[in-house]
């Protein structure tokens, strides 16, 4: 049963590389911000899945903190490119 979570985590990492392509080739700045936001969401999911795979359930707390901090950084970058800072 644990193996299925490991395979899922690996596939989510492969999916995140697709968002990395948009981060590299994105023609404008907001496109790159959207790609970073997508990668953050997938990273939170990978952290929780790997916490189950390695049986270290304290990793789930790290995922909560990462979700809130990535929200703060997204808001900061959005305020900056919107010219409100």
């Amino acid at each position: 049963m644990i193996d299925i979570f490991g395979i899922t985590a690996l596939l989510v990492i492969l999916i995140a590389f697709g968002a990395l392509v948009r981060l590299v080739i994105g023609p404008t700045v907001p496109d790159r911000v959207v790609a970073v936001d997508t990668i953050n969401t997938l990273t939170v999911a990978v952290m929780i899945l790997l916490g189950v795979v390695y049986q270290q359930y304290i990793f789930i707390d790290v995922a909560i903190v990462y979700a809130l901090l990535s929200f703060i950084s997204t808001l900061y970058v959005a305020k900056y490119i919107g010219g409100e800072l």
Partner: protein
Amino acid sequence: MIADTLILIFLAIGLVFNALGVIGLLRFPDVYTRLHASTKATTFGSIFLFLGVVVFAISQYLGTSDSQYLMVITHTIIAMFALAITNAAGSHAIARAAHRNGQKPQQAVVDKLAEAGL
């Protein structure tokens, strides 16, 4: 037995919707449609991945009655709510910033936000 089937179904739904979100991010023409595809699809997919973890922890708790699995259940649900709330607000902030930055939607017929002078 039924828990294993449920975990497989939830993880498959999560993977499919995460993949659809990233495919939309790669194939849509402008920033607003990319935001639409990636935010909604990856939030839905990640919630289903978390539901798979919750079902796994519930089945383990019913099998072993080890109290650390209660911590897994509550903290995964907290992470699910944090992700669902912050993703929606963050995508709103990005779309507003992109409009203020001067991005126009491709093939837009009417732009009521620019007409109102916002």
